[in-house]
Structures are given as C-alpha cells and as structure tokens.
C-alpha cells in the first residue's frame, strides 16, 4: 500500500482543463511536482489536499479514498498543505500561530518547531508585521505544527532570495532526514532537485515524466517542455 496514490485526477475550470488525468504514486520520501507556468501544479496540489474537488479520478492516502474529503479531514489524517502565497494568522503572534494546532492532535512542540524553522527570536511578534522571508518560514512552521505525515509544500521558496531559499531548503532537508515526507511543487527546479528523490513533471495539465531525479534530465519530453528542444544538452 502506497502512502499517497493519485489516479486519473482531472480538474477543469470552465473549458480549461488544468489537470488532465494525472496519476502517480508516492514511493519516496520527497517528491517534486514540477512544470512550467500554467502546467497545473498548484491545482493538482490543491486537489490532493481537498481544497478543490476533482472532476474525475481518485486520491488515496494510506489506501483510503480521500477524494471528496474536506481539507480539515485530510489534514487530520496526516496530509497537510502549505500555501504558495503565505497565509499567516496575522493578528496572532508567531507562537500563537503554532499553538492554534495544540490539542487538535495532541500537544504541539512549539519550541522545537520554532527552532527547526529558525523563528525562535520572533516567537512573540505579531505575524502581520513580519517580513516576507520570515512569513515563508512561518508557513512551513504552521505545516509542521499540524503534525503531518506528508507535507504538501506549494512553492516554498518562491519569492525568496537565493540565500533565504538555501536556508529554507536546508531546513526541509533536515526535516526529510527526521522522517517528514513531502511533496513539493516548485518552479525553481535546480534548487529543489537536490532534496527530492522522485520527480513528476507536468505540462499543460498532463504528466510528461514520472521517475527518479537522475532520469529527469535525460527524458526527451522534459527537455522539450523545459528547453524547447530534445537535442539541447544539460
């Protein structure tokens, strides 16, 4: 039984098919969903997390069909989504942003999460006044506070400077080593590839690649989608 299994998932908006019969299995600790702009990555992630409901297809988590479950129920089962556009609870302090999830699934180890995400020094600050880089970390911290088995990370490093992105990816790598599994949707391919084991590539809503990281750049369809030609080298 796979931890996460997506079968023939389709989601359209009006006449525009954003995700078209996408299937994959999560057989590794970290999976990247990549693709050019408009490929359907965020729609796919939102559909897996229950934020959107698919037109067709199924999402199974630990063998259980969660396709029509509301987001809170999927999150309680252990699959938690973070947002590309950060969504902090602005009137609450950083610490309160995490304590919110206390008593939902047992006690949240606030100190540890603040430590892992490097937010200890701003724990008492109201989230609404934090700079963007810290809000990105807070988004990750909130995801961890929900005690996930699988973290669904929507473009965790978008909008961050190179050094900020490197810091956040280091945290993700540490989390992966500690046993947190993750699905990353990301634009900045070269930066996230070192921390993932498998890659699913989308183009115009369809799967064009599903394989290991090392196979990724050798695939002709990927080369065409990313580089415009199958002949261009790495």
């Amino acid at each position, binding site marked *: 039984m796979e931890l996460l299994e997506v079968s023939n998932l389709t989601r359209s908006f009006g006449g525009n098919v954003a995700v078209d019969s996408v299937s994959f299995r999560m057989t590794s600790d970290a999976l990247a969903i990549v693709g050019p702009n408009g490929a359907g990555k965020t729609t796919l992630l939102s559909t897996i*997390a229950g*934020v959107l409901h698919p037109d067709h297809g199924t999402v199974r988590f630990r063998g259980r069909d969660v396709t029509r479950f*509301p*987001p*809170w*129920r999927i*999150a*309680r089962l*252990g699959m*938690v*989504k973070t*947002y590309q556009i950060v*969504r*902090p*609870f*602005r*009137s*609450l302090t950083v610490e*309160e942003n995490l*304590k*919110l*999830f*206390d*008593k*939902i*699934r*047992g006690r949240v*180890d606030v*100190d*540890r*999460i*603040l*430590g*892992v*995400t*490097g937010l*200890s020094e701003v724990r008492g600050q109201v989230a609404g006044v934090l700079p963007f880089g810290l809000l990105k*970390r807070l988004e990750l911290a*909130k*995801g*961890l*506070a*929900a*005690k*996930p*088995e699988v973290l669904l990370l929507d473009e965790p490093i978008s909008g961050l400077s190179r050094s900020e992105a490197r*810091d*956040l990816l*280091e*945290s993700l790598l*540490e*989390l992966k*080593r*500690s*046993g*947190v599994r993750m699905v990353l949707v990301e634009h900045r391919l070269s930066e996230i590839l070192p921390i993932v084991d498998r890659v699913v590539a989308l183009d115009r809503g369809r799967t064009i690649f599903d394989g290991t990281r090392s196979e990724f750049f050798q695939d002709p369809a990927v080369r065409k989608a990313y580089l415009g030609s199958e002949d261009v080298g790495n």
Partner: protein
Amino acid sequence: MPTDTAPSSDLRRRPVGGGIAGALRRGARSFAGSARLNASRLTSPLYLGALGVIIVFAYLGSGNPTSFFALSLVLSSIYITLALAWDFSSGMTGYLNFGLPFFFGVGALVTGQLYATDSHLTPSSLAFFSFGVGLLGGFLFSLPTLRLRGPYFSLLSFLLPLIGADFILAFWTQLGLRTQGYYGLPFLGATYGDELVLLSAANVAILTAFFLLRESHFGLVLRGIRDDEDALGSQGIRTFPYKVVAFTLASGVVAFSGATYAMVYTFAGVDAFGFAFILFPILIVIVGGTGELFGSIFAGYVVILLYQYLFPTFSDLTLIIFASAAILLVLFIPHGLVRPLRAFIRFMRTGE
C-alpha cells in the same frame, strides 16, 4: 537558516483516538486545560481596569438609586452585555451577526410568558430560563446558517429579527399567547440602584467568562477564523463547531439580557425585537475596538450615557451625531480605543 534545536521525528503526526466519544473527550480536556492555563490572565491590567470601571459606575449609580443617572447606567449595563456578546461572537470571528435583536426579543417574551404562567418565579430564575432558551435558539439558528460564509451569513442574520419576529408572533397567536405584550412583570430590583448592582455583577461574570475563553485555545481558533478560516481548515481544524459554540453562547447571553430589559421596564413586547438592540452594541464595539472585549466596557458607558443626556436636547438628531462620530472614529482610530491603550501599557512595561 539558523536552527536552535535539532529536528526530530516527533514533528510527525501521532495517531489519536477518533469517533464522537474521542472528540468529546478531547473537547472536555481542551476546555479544562484552557481554564487552568488562563486563570493567571485575570491579573491583566486591562481586565482589572474594566472591572474597576464597572465597580465605580455601580457605586456611583447606587448612591442615587432612583435618579435618571442610575437609570442611564442600568441601560448602559444592558447594552454592554449585548456588546460583549456581539464582540465575543462576531468581533472575534469576523462573522457579522445582525440577528442579535431576535434573541433579545425572545428573551423578553419568554420572560413575559413564564411570569404569566407562574407569577411566583423570581427575576433571577426568569433570566436564567431565558438564557437557556437563548442557548437553544442560538444553537438551532447556528447549525444551518454558520455553514454560510461572510456576507451570506450576515445577510441571513439581518433577516432573522425581521422574519423571526413575525414567525414567533404568529406562533404565539396559534398558541393563544399574548401578542399585545406582557405588562406587570416583576422588577429586577427594588430601585435602579439595585438593578444596576445586579446587572454590573452579571457583566463582571460575562466579561470574565468571555475573557477566559478569548485567552484559551478556543479563543485562538476564533481569532484564527477571523484572520483566515480556509488556512485553518487546510491544517486540520474544523472551524464549524467553534463558530457554533461561540454564537450559541452569545445568543444565550443576549436572551438573558432581553429578560433583564423586560424586568427593568416590567413590560415585554415586540419592541424588544427593535433594531436599536443591534445598532448600539455595534457602535459600542466600534468605539471600544473589535475583538477586544474590554472596549465594550469602556465604550459602553460613554456611548449610552452620552446618548441619554444628548437625546433630550437633540432628539432624533442624536443618532446622526453618533453615526458621524462613529465614521470619524473608524477613519482615525480604526481599531478602537483599547488597542492604543494596550500598546501604551506594553510600552510602559517593556519600553517597546
């Protein structure tokens, strides 16, 4: 990125018991834990300040127990109760509920009917029975309506006092009850001064209960709903039960307030469904600060006393003056009076 502690597999989810029994156990533990945790919050300067204001006005009013001033303070106390209930539910969650007058009217009419049925009932038992009816009514109202979001919920709640009052009165007629109103209800107290003391004590209890809940995990979730309800859902918090509990509690308190109002005037009728019983509480919350609770205490006395003393001179213009003042306040002090006060207290304590 700097890390202060090593990560651990503890960050992953631990399995917990499911089912209704598990949810109830977790809920009970959550409330019990919150109450213990937050008892220390009762030393907060703003809370103590709010208590001081209530006590001072109760003392001043009871010193001249039959005066217009004492009556004005009684009315202030009733509107403060309403404002506290509105702020606890709508101010904290961001779900604007215009349906409070319905439960205020229900509280008054239930008091009237109960007393007509059994004239030996004491004012306190009448008020507490109305509180119970308000809880039940609020729960039934919340179940379908709180599935709606933002403006849809507000629109429906706006219609509730209008349609609900007609419905109740039609139902009242079917049952052969008095639609023309109930006269001769018992006085809440022997004088306005006595009534003021009772209502002030009730406000202390309500403020304390709401404040403890606000500072608990329950209150955190309510404030989280106001900030971003969908984000809460994506991370495992089902917001619906929290909203239902908040609005049910608020409805009970409002019905309690309706009962006390009926006993101050010794009359309960359809006027208790009037729009003033939502207008003034919202005005008080705007002046005091949304979601602040204490603001309702400080602003409640100011707004209602001003209205009471300006109305004989300015008559209907008084409301226009108040509305203009509210607009100016929203423009220049959008978060109300308490937030700057809170910032000042923090500055005095920490220098930041």
